[in-house]
């Protein structure tokens, strides 16, 4: 079920009314309702894949209980291994099986050896990368003795499948979200009102910014050789705003819906395009994933301790894994690698924390923000392109500076109008966020005038006819 669909428009108020009116003050019944609603929400897409979530939930629930019972190190390792194998095994099979088979065949082919590889027609279950990581955080934290396992299967299952953030995050930590299922929820006006604001803001980013930009981005990335340098430059910037509007819009809606049910999810984006260097960008972009990798991969690897060489190795590993998490394609790996390379000078010069503390902006920061945004945009080309060769064609054609014509965007009245709308949407988004950044806010806040203005924008500028799926569903 999509947030921006008719079904969800009926689903959400129904669950809300049942939750606060019918099952008010009945914690267990509320949790059961959330669980059932989450299964319906997910099963709406393909009910067969519910079995994967149930299996993953059951394994980790059992592993959690067993970890509590045993103090024996080898047994605990075995239990953690079981959880990791089951979860990463499912993820690996559904997401990466074909990639590994094909890469194996291609690798041998490059040295002249012909291999037979059997690829399978595998459907990637929506959101598998998200809920797998979420449930893994539970067993790892119990293994590390940082979290007590829950005795309630309902609470745990509701945590794993919590519908607002099930398919595209934020990837919640068990230590943060799970205890919220134990506590009696009291309706708070301010929390719910903030939730509605976030839903409206997220919806604006999705249907006005992202979906309008997507109309131009898709044909440009399909055949970059057919476009001028100017058109490719605009296409690249449009994609930067498409993916930001799409993904952060989803997160905002997810956080907003959670607030309606009395839950607080972690902030996933902090206006990342106002970052002054790549290190700051990664502290503002997809925070739930980068902190997950930091806590469960980077720090166990040694983190920033040890020699520079050791730190460099860890940074490269973390960026490569992050790229690979996004999809089974060399383009994502290269995207991760590119970010690692951009991070490298900051690490070597010990500048990776320079902009961490400072929330004040000077004129020089404008230049830094512009430079960082440009670098991020170039990297996005690899992320969006269907293949490495298309990405390289894109950048080659872009850097040829052959023509700055923007004819594609104004080829008829409809295109011109849509182009102007997309630019206007980006300007509104950027101005609104700039104001928040200058106010030193980390999360969106809208007064009633902005809320009304955004509602108007959603209905009269939104791309309902050319509606797109959320990009991160594929991950």
């Amino acid at each position, binding site marked *: 079920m999509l947030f921006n669909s*008719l079904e969800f428009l009926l689903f959400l108020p129904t669950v809300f009314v049942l939750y*606060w009116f019918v099952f008010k003050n009945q914690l267990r019944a509320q949790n059961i309702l959330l669980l059932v609603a989450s299964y319906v929400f997910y099963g709406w897409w393909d009910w067969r894949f519910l079995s994967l979530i149930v299996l993953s939930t059951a394994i980790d629930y059992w592993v959690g209980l067993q970890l509590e019972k045993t103090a024996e190190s080898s047994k605990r390792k075995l239990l953690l291994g079981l959880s990791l194998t089951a979860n990463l095994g499912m993820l690996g099979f559904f997401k990466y099986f074909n990639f590994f088979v094909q890469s194996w065949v291609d690798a041998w082919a490059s040295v002249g050896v012909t291999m037979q590889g059997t690829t399978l027609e595998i459907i990637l279950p929506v959101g598998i990368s998200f809920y797998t990581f979420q449930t893994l955080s539970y067993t790892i934290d119990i293994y590390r003795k940082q979290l007590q396992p829950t005795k309630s299967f309902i609470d745990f299952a509701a945590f794993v499948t919590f519908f607002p953030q099930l398919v595209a995050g934020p990837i919640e930590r068990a230590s943060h979200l799970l205890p919220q299922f134990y506590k009696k929820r009291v309706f708070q006006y301010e929390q719910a009102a903030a939730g*509605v604001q976030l839903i409206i803001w997220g919806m604006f980013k999705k249907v006005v910014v992202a979906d309008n930009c997507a109309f131009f981005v898709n044909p440009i990335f399909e055949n970059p050789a057919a476009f001028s340098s100017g058109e490719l430059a605009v296409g690249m910037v449009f994609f930067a705003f498409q993916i930001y509007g799409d993904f952060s819009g989803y997160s905002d809606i997810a956080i907003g819906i959670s607030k309606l049910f009395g839950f607080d999810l972690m902030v996933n984006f902090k206006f990342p395009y106002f970052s002054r260097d790549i290190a700051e960008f990664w502290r503002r972009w997809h925070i739930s994933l980068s902190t997950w990798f930091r806590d469960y991969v980077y720090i166990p690897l040694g983190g920033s301790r040890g020699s520079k060489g050791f730190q460099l190795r860890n940074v490269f590993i973390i960026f490569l894994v992050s790229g690979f998490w996004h999809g089974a394609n060399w383009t994502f790996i290269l995207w991760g690698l590119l970010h690692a390379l951009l991070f490298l000078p900051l690490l070597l010069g010990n500048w990776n924390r320079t902009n961490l503390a400072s929330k004040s902006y000077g004129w020089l920061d404008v230049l830094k923000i512009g430079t960082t945004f440009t670098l991020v945009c170039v990297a996005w080309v690899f992320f969006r392109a269907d293949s490495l060769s298309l990405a390289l064609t894109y950048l080659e054609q872009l850097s040829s500076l052959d023509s700055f014509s923007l004819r594609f965007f104004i080829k008829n*009245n409809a295109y011109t109008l849509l182009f102007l*709308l997309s630019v206007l949407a980006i300007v509104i988004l950027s101005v609104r966020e700039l104001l928040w950044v200058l106010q030193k806010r980390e999360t969106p806040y809208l007064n009633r005038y902005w809320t*009304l203005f955004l509602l108007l924008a959603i*209905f*009269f500028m939104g791309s309902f006819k050319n509606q797109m799926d959320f990009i991160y569903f594929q991950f």
Partner: protein
Amino acid sequence: MQKFVIKIGIYGVLSFVLLNAIAFGALFFLGKSQLYKPQFLKNGVPTTQFDYIVLGSSTGLTTLDTKTIDSVMQWNGLNLSMDDSSLNSHVLMLEYFLSLGKKTDKVILCVTPWDLQNPTNTLNDNDYRFLTEINNPVIYQHYQTYDTKGLAVLKYSKYFPLLGMSYYNNELFFPALFTAVQPNKRNRFDEKGNYTYPNAQNAVVPKEPNTIQLSIKNPAFQRMQALCEAHQIELLIYQSPLYRQTVQFPDGKETIINHSAILPEDLFYDPIHVTSVGRTFCTLAFCEALKNNE
């Protein structure tokens, strides 16, 4: 909780009313314009009696030039073709034309083989252009019958214009703002309803010639026949040129001018449309055929 529900209710209703009022206003301005064919017919064409009208999709719009036909045949006609439409919408256009109290002796129906062979009628891509006329019973009925998928935004726009205006905001809302300033602006057609492609060829890929043995399965065709019969209108079928395709029609009671295979290849703009020179060629050939039929 109570405060939240009340506030959400009040703000929700107020927003809904405001948004619908804006949509209604936009629809009002668009309805007074000549932007699309339905508004043009209502506001830009004072004539009520025509010798003929041309109905069709983009092939009808760009192949037959009513100015040339009028001058050669000494007739008075109008091109009411709309791009991205099909027989179903052509019937609607004729119903709408008649509902405005206008009359015509002939309907020249520009057909395409794939449309005639299509047994299923659905809402067409550009049927939203009739939205300003939703209070006209023929338009309302059309939306009730064919807008059946998803939210059915056109179907319910009579009471909630926000639905149609929001869904088709690029096609209706922003053009409506434009027509508030320039009500006489027309969307890519002249004062007789014609449009032409340029002379350069666009996307003609050579292919083997073939013949289409046509059998008419579209139920809208029978509706067109019945409507013409009921209003004593002569129905003429016109098949415009198709690149390396010959259409063979089944026998019928209507006059068929089949020009599927008459156009030199260099006068095609794309496989189903003609260039500006091709349009003159086709229109003169059409007039010649009309004269031979008379």
